[in-house]
């Protein structure tokens, strides 16, 4: 570990914290329907969208209506992606002449993109036409991100409102999020990336002759525009198979740093939106602190593990850290930080292969996702995921102050606990359940690249990533098989929607409750005690759920390695 390395990490954290407040202020205004500096340009477009689609923006929805609207919206998204993938051979913008995508792969990919997972069982440049990338995938990158934020807004409204039956209007929230937040940032961001050297073209792949005289096809395409939203919306689906490790998808150290920032920016800002809406920004900072503590701890462990390398490498005379699977342009610190950021935030873009990390270094990304993608988390999704854990933490410990637990003025009662438990049950059910199948079902076991605990971790990581809607791959696992296409799709689907519906039920139930003014008898939720408590509950809940699996995967691998066994 180096001072420069730590400075980079500190700088990253500082910029995120600095962005949180202004972005939070802006987003609060956008979702509150107030004027912003972009309104003169965008307001007519917004009004036009409502006029065409027949949406009454003044009319708010009950949580159930809101949820049904969201689900219908996703059914449409699914059909479009599935359709264009199956039909891409006969559709335009296919200069590379890609054939129709297989049924199971199309299914997996469609689910992957509507759930904001962007797990890629396909190789972008070798499977998909420009049209599929642009018409099928890029819109979902926007819309699944906008959906996540919209849902978080609905839950936040549940907390901030009192005695109301509605939680907002899904169509309005998604439209505003896309128009006022995602699109403007992406336009500027895309230009920046192009400036950094990223391709943005609809032209065909380039045929080049190398210095040795060999002919080489260089894949290009509308990369920059897709990368912008892939990062900002924590989608993570790379234009190229190598994702952010590909020089065209991550040309410079600066682009790398900005990409990391853009993964966290909106998720972190949501905490400020929460604070503003419940009338006390410190509530938001407390949540961000919970995320921050877990994040910094994760970065420290991964960076330490990677920078120290392994005893086996040292025995071979290789001093320094573990560089296997890392882009030399980025090195250990940028790769470690990227790995933790992308898994903490449900993004899933990678600039290094997590499979090649040391056992402990690779365990942190795994844990990040297993905790429920709540360390900043996917845009919006991280916020509502975190609030579910806060509800549980408050419920258990809040009783210890001798009152029915309450959070930001709302009583946490049976219904909230039930829904939060239902949502959290999804994690062990999908991750542990499918892993148990995956490690014994022969056709599935054949997909692993390594034996022993490492192979186990590959399977565990795949289902973890899918359930957490992260989408990053541990690599090593061959995912494009019938078994994995279907099981991972189910994990992604359940991991997204079986979490959303209970979260929305909570939003509805909270909105109907009265708001209780705080007193000295109220559980304080802005201080260090609260932060420590929530961190503790998250770690203990996650630890208790996944400890056996982790023990049999990365932990035993690490111990075996120290004893001289590799897998």
């Amino acid at each position, binding site marked *: 570990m180096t001072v420069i390395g730590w400075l980079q990490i500190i700088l990253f954290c500082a910029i995120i914290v600095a962005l949180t407040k202004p972005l939070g202020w802006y987003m609060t205004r956008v979702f509150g329907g107030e004027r912003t500096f972009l309104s003169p340009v965008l307001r007519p477009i917004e009004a036009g969208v409502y006029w065409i689609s027949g949406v009454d923006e003044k009319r708010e929805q009950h949580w159930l209506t809101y949820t049904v609207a969201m689900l219908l919206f996703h059914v449409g998204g699914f059909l479009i992606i599935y359709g264009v993938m199956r039909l891409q051979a006969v559709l335009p913008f296919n200069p590379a002449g890609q054939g129709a995508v297989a049924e199971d792969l199309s299914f997996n990919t469609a689910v992957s993109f509507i759930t904001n997972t962007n797990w890629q069982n396909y190789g972008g440049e070798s499977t998909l036409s420009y049209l599929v990338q642009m018409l099928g995938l890029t819109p979902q990158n926007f819309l699944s991100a906008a959906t996540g934020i919209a849902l978080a807004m609905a839950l936040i409204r549940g907390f901030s409102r009192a005695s109301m039956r509605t939680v907002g209007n899904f169509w309005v929230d998604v439209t505003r999020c896309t128009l006022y937040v995602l699109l403007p940032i992406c336009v500027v961001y895309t230009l920046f990336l192009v400036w950094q050297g990223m391709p943005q073209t609809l032209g065909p792949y380039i045929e080049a002759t190398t210095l040795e005289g060999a002919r080489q096809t260089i894949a290009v395409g509308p990369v920059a525009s897709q990368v912008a939203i892939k990062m900002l919306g924590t989608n993570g689906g790379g234009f190229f198979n190598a994702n952010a490790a590909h020089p065209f998808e991550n040309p410079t150290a600066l682009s790398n740093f900005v990409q990391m920032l853009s993964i966290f920016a909106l998720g972190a800002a949501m905490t400020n939106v929460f604070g503003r809406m419940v009338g006390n920004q410190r509530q938001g900072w407390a949540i961000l602190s919970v995320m921050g503590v877990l994040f910094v701890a994760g970065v420290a462990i991964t960076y330490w593990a990677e920078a120290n390398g392994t005893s086996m490498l040292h025995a071979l005379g290789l001093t320094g850290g573990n560089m296997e699977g890392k882009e030399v342009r980025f090195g250990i610190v940028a790769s470690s930080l990227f790995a933790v950021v992308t898994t903490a935030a449900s993004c899933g873009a990678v600039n290094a292969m997590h499979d090649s990390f040391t056992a402990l270094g690779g365990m942190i990304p795994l844990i990040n996702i297993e905790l429920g993608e709540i360390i900043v988390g996917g845009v919006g999704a991280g916020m509502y995921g975190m609030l579910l854990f806060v509800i549980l933490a408050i419920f258990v410990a809040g009783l210890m*102050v001798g*009152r029915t637990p309450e959070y930001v003025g709302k009583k946490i009662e049976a219904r*909230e606990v039930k829904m939060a438990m*239902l949502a959290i049950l999804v994690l062990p059910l999908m991750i542990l359940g499918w892993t148990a199948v995956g490690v014994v079902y022969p056709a599935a076991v054949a997909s692993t690249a390594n034996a022993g605990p490492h192979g186990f971790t590959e399977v565990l990581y795949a289902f973890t990533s899918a359930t957490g809607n992260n989408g990053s791959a541990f690599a090593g696992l061959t995912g494009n098989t019938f078994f994995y296409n279907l099981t991972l799709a189910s994990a992604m689907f359940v991991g997204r929607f079986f979490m959303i519906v209970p979260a929305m039920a909570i939003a509805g139930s909270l909105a109907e409750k009265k708001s209780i003014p705080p007193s000295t008898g109220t559980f304080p939720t802005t201080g260090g005690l609260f932060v420590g408590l929530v961190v503790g509950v998250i770690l203990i809940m996650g630890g208790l759920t996944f400890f056996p*699996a982790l023990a049999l995967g990365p932990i035993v691998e690490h111990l075996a390695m120290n004893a001289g066994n590799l897998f």
Partner: protein
Amino acid sequence: MDTTKLQKRAAVSAMLDPKIVMPAIRASFTKLDPRLMVKNPVMFVVEIVAALTTVIFLRDIITGGSGLGFTFQIIVWLWFTVLFANFAEAVAEGRGKAQAESLRKTRTESQAKLLTGAGRAFKMVPGTSLKVGDIVLVEAGDTIPSDGEVIEGVASVNEAAITGESAPVIRESGGDRSAVTGGTQVLSDWIRVRITAAQGSTFIDRMIKLVEGAERQKTPNEIALNILLAGLTIIFVFATVTIPSYAAYAGGSISVIVLVALFVTLIPTTIGALLSAIGIAGMDRLVRFNVLAMSGRAVEAAGDVDTLLLDKTGTITLGNRQATAFRPVRGVTEQELADAAQLASLADETPEGRSIVVLAKEKYGIRGRDMAELGATFIPFTAQTRMSGVDAGGSSVRKGAVDAMLNYVGGGAPLAVASGNAARAIQPAALSDLGREIQTIADEISKAGGTPLAVARDGKLLGVIQLKDIVKGGIRERFAELRRMGIRTIMITGDNPMTAAAIAAEAGVDDFLAQATPEDKLKLIRDEQAKGKLVAMCGDGTNDAPALAQADVGVAMNTGTQAAREAGNMVDLDSNPTKLIEVVEIGKQLLMTRGALTTFSIANDVAKYFAIIPAMFLAFYPQLNVLNVMNLSSPQSAILSAIIFNALIIIALIPLALKGVAYRAVGAGALLRRNLLIYGLGGIVIPFIGIKAIDLVVTALHLA
């Protein structure tokens, strides 16, 4: 609170009383009935796995499996876990049962004198045959057959059966002391009672059911907690049932009994076992304070109370105002005023009236006079005139509220009696001067927290009697404590705002409602509730009933009317309004105990993982022995120690569950920090020590 009474009741509830423990042990087994167990999801699951492993064990005995001794021990401890949980519940119930038993003894089969006509003709019928609306006669020595309302007569009643207080109380028709309780005994005189409760639903019947826990329903918070525990149980189902598959991948296998041991130690059995005991003990604690909660929900709500409405009289101040000074107007001596005041109060039996007579005697040496000798007639206080007095020998003396008296001497109110002198014309200018002087004195008294009573003789104002409320000793500290708990206190009084403000300041309440009518009280409660606050109050009169019903926690005084007792969700048998504060504390304690034991239970799991996981996988991943931080001697002993600890901790925590976590009136933050340290951090550390200690014993005894 009467301490001897407390001790008496506490003695009945001693936990280690064999009278409670022996039936509880028996009940531990009868409660194994799955139909009863299913109400407690966590322990039900333990029972199921215990039964399943027993079946597997029996099969293995027949087929001849290996390691049967170890399996047997695990199974024994699984059953112990369930039995200990049942025992905890049975002990908690046993304490109530003992009280119910003593109540039941009072409910003897009595004969009732059912009135058959308008006169005193009656026929004897069995008490059980009475219907609501029947009118019975109860005479000295009779037991009141059922709950009812006194419609005629006055009697002294021994209510020791329900209150434990042997001093008799007066029950009379009309007013706020008209309710009588079935099973209590009339000591003197007679009353006519209209029956208001059918057999089986009388106050004592309800009390028996409550303390026995027969009709115990889960409270909202308990339901929520049960959901959490069930959810955790399901998570651990996933965590354990997937392990064999993982082990198979690694080329090993895990026996069912080890998996079961891991599962049972992980699920929150500690809190699952003690949850209902905590609830029952909470109710029981109230009963020992002589407060009956009609539902567990009310006890829970008490912990959440944000605003406490307290009646001034009897709660904040000593029941009675006392005369402390005579303040004459110019030209009148104190002696003259004292004389008139004493005369006006001679027949006034109210405590205020008596205190005037006492003051006149002690300070001015004015002797008591006999009304009959003076040929005086008493003019009683009415709500319309708001004054009282005496007419004697052509002279009339009146005392009353200042505004009423000003009105009276001003000629606004017609004179009640014919009196030559009283008809004397009063000069308007003189009145306004005199009136202004009276008003000034009255204001001074009010500002100091006193109540002024103006005195007039023959239509001429003589001066003002100063009555003063005596604030109860120590009440100020109690309010400070409540403030630290985050509870706002509001004093309710019929006094004028100035007097109210002075007393409020002296007592240290946060706010007050002066000149309060029952409607004002109801409105105040509604307003507070609209702000999202929970309101507690106590009351006794019929006009308190709407407010008692509206309040989230309404404590009715046992001396109160039937209407008030029906409207409240708690009844204070001692009729001590200050007790509301204890009720709040008990509610808080109940919630805290639940939270503390839940936290403890979940925190325990960390150590159990470190005991069992290395032991489980040691056969195929010996490297994992690094995780055996407790250095337990063998895999078997590690697993056995964990499950023994898991069972014994239930027994160890029963006293805490019954007694409740100590509540201190400090801010929520300090309270949380303290409890997190004890039950959170303690919950992580204690099992490491406990499991290690048990492991040493298990190894020494060669059990594994």
